[in-house]
Structures are given as C-alpha cells and as structure tokens.
C-alpha cells in the first residue's frame, strides 16, 4: 500500500469551509468600538454615581471587533457596574435607559451568565428580571438572533 493511505490528516479538514455556497457575514461598518472607557467608568463608580457608570459602560459596545480580549474586558466591566447597584435602585436605572441600551444590557447580562464568578449570577438574575419587565421577551429573542454580539 502506498504511504499516503497511512496518513489520516485528511480527517481533520473542515470541508464546510470550502463550500462555495457558504454564507459569509459581510464585514460590517467601522472598527471604532474599543469597548467602554474603563477609566471613566471606574471614576464614576468611585464617586458612587451608579446611574452615570451604567450609562458610560453601555457606550461603545465592542460588537464588531474580533478581538476577544476587548470583549472580555467590556463584559467584566459591565458585571462590575451591575454588581455595585443596590437591588432597590435597579428598576429605576433600567427605566432610565432607552430601547437600544436596554437590548444591549440584555446582551451583556447573557454574556455575564456565560462566565459566572462568585456572586455575579445572582446579581445578573435580578437585573434580568427587571430588564425583562421593561423590554419583554423580544429583547431575549434579539440576544439569541444577533449575529454580532458583545
């Protein structure tokens, strides 16, 4: 038997990559999204301006970037801000956000669920309940169907 039949490297080839009809997402828009400004958010947190910190952390979401580090940092920052809220203040904070920010917040909440730390899941669940009351199941559907997410 010839030597080439002994190799099984061909089994590791991903044939779907070579399918000419494969759907490729268009490379979207600008790459100016480097994630929320950490310094600004930390400053607002230290001043106990929680609502301000929430607004700031929801700016510049790293949706289009392929850099995983940026996304990780943004996600951890958001969880930090959400954990610093008192449970009684959450509802008011959610009410102050506009529609796109609420959808974005829901995306961050689910991202936060993926990598739980000590208390984050409990905090995120409380936030989830309040955001759901405002935005309805539609916001969860948008988290599930978004092609580019945080």
């Amino acid at each position: 038997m010839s030597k080439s039949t002994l190799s099984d490297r061909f089994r590791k080839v991903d044939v779907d990559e070579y399918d000419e009809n494969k759907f490729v997402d268009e490379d979207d828009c600008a790459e100016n999204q480097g994630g929320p400004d950490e310094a600004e958010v930390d400053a607002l947190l230290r001043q106990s301006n929680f609502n301000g910190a929430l607004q700031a952390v929801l700016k510049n979401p790293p949706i289009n970037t392929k850099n995983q580090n940026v996304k990780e940092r943004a996600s951890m920052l958001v969880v930090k801000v959400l954990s610093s809220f008192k449970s009684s203040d959450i509802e008011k904070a959610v009410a102050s956000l506009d529609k796109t920010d609420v959808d974005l917040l829901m995306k961050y909440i689910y991202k936060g669920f993926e990598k739980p730390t000590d208390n984050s899941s409990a905090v995120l669940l409380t936030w989830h309940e309040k955001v759901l009351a405002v935005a309805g199941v539609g916001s969860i559907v948008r988290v599930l169907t978004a092609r580019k997410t945080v």
Partner: protein
Amino acid sequence: MSYHSFLLEPISCHAWNKDRSQIALCPNNHEVHIYKKDGTKWSKVHELKEHNGQVTGIDWAPDSNRIVTCGADRNAYVWTLKDGAWKPTLVILRINRAARCVRWSPRENKFAVGSGSRLISICYFEQENDWWVCKHIKKPIRSTILSLDWHPNNVLLAAGSCDFKCRVFSAYIKEVEEKPGPTPWGSKMPFGEVLFESGCSGAVSQPGAGGGGWVHSVCFSHSGNRLAWTSHDSTVSVAEGGKNATVISLSSETLPLLCVTFITENSLVAAGHDCYPVLFVYDEAKGTVAFGGKLDVPKQSTQKGISARERFQNLDRRASENQANEKELSSLHKNSISQISVLEGGRVQCAKFCTTGMDGGMAIWDVKTLESAMKNLKIV
C-alpha cells in the same frame, strides 16, 4: 370574531377564492383541501392530490380562478377548474430545493415562487408552447426565500429571505407585459434588478441593528409606496419607496412575528408566535412605527369564590392560592399564527382579515368590532 377549528394538525398555508366562499388549505400533508362555506359550517368539497411533498404555499387568483400550489417536492402546479374538478398543470421550476412560497401577480399573468435554492422563479405562460416557463432571479440572494409580495404595478416583487434581508426586485417579463412606468422605488427596472435592499450599509448609529433575523413576511401597502416586513429578531420594519429609503424599525416586546399585512395605508397587523394579532401604526411625519395594541378577544375571567380546600390544594400544587389556569392560553388561537390574509376591503381599508395557525384553526377578525372592543385602539 369567529374561530373555526379545521384540524388538529397545523394549517401550512391557505388561500381564499374571490367571493370568500371557499378556502383552500394544506393540512400539513401532501394535499390541498378546499372547503366551502355552508351557512356557519365548512364542508370539504375538493381534495387536490398531486404533490409528493408538503404543500408549502397556495395562492388563488381571484379573477382567473386558478390556484397555484408549490411544495417541498420542488414542484409547482397550476390548477384550473374543469367540469367541477380541479386539474393540475405541472410547472417546471428548475430548482433543486423545496419551494417555500408562491404568489400570483396582481394581473395574474405570472407568479413568483420562492425556494430554498436561493432563488426566485418567475413563471409565465408561453402561448406558443402551451406551457409555463420560468426565469430565475438569483443575485444577490444568499439563502432561502421565505416570503414574497407583489407591487400593484405587476412588475416589482418584494422578497424576504433567510439571509436577513428584505429586497425589492424587478420581475419584468417582456413577453407578457409592456414596460412599467417609474415608481418611487426606481425607474429603470430590467429583470432581476435589485431596487431596494434592507440591512445596515454604513451607519453604525444603531449597534446591533440590521442583520437581525430571518425575514418571515413582507407586504406592500395598497399604493405600493410602502413596504413592511417582520423579522425573526422580533422587529417589524417599514420602508418608503426610493433607493436610499429610510427604514424605520420597531423592536417589539413580543416573540417573533411570522406574518404581516397592511390594513390601511398607515396601519399594519402582524401575528406570530405569540398567538394573537398585533396592531402597529406607522407615522410618516414622525418617522416611527408604534405598537398599537394587542388585537384579541379579551377573556372574561370568572372569579368565583373558591373553597378553603381548593385554596390549600392550589398552594400545594402551584405555590399560589389563585386558580389561574396557566396551562391554557387566553388568546383565540392556541398556537402560533403562521399566515394572515385580508378578506374584505383590500389593504387600504380592510374590514375583515383572517388568520390561520399551527393549531389547525382559522379565525376571522372584524376590524370594526376590534376597534370598538379594544379601548384606545385607533386604526388610522
């Protein structure tokens, strides 16, 4: 509001004849059943058996009284009524995946079929050879076409696709019609030209907007100047004619909507996985789409007194004392609504519309009754 339960299986698709006395529907199998209205009952009068796969689309041409059906067997048939029986004529679509939806054009001289082969087949009748031929629109479609709707000028066709975009194509066939005049969507309309495509093209103003979900349903308004579509990311969008048309979207709070239709020039009714129709109002001046209200029969909750024993039983079983029976939906349809069609009044002043769904039932909704029943409901 009347509701009639035809079957226990989902109704895959339906179509009405011109005087709304007969309805053709597919009971989730390879056949099409035609029911005739008999007073308040519906009786089956015809069974159209020709397809080898599930029938995914039916359309009934009102004036020429022909039915076109398309199915998962990659075929379409045009049925004509001869001597009281429906006779099929095969249409070669030249597709290699299932057909998904079919629509007669307004003048009924051609029809369009959307399929999983990532193309739209425009079929017209060739007199010399005495059979139906088709032309394909392929570019730039990249996934299954889920829904189609014709513009009143018989040339423009809107298509909603699984590649997250809603497009308007020109389906001008020079063999069967003269050149169309200019419209707000464009003036040059060679066959297959894309006159409008939804989706983000540059603006990053709305993070996450565009490219959201499969476009389940598209609908032109009566004048053809407005196009509405619903998408799987729970949004409903409206665009006004013109290539750089502004697209106004509303992210709704409901589950994804599967079907939409205009009932006046400014109001849309859409329905989907939430099992009840919903009204949306488009305001041109403000450029917004707003949620108008949930259109459904309000269920009278009978609050009888419950005994102490029942109270404890409820506490034991569901950790709450009230008798709210959460197993039953309070809406008229008990499962997702998959198709909506206008019965009376057209898309400009609809008086009645009909919905069919996965619960095998068909509901007929009367707009005037809805307007008076629901407070704060305004249909502009």
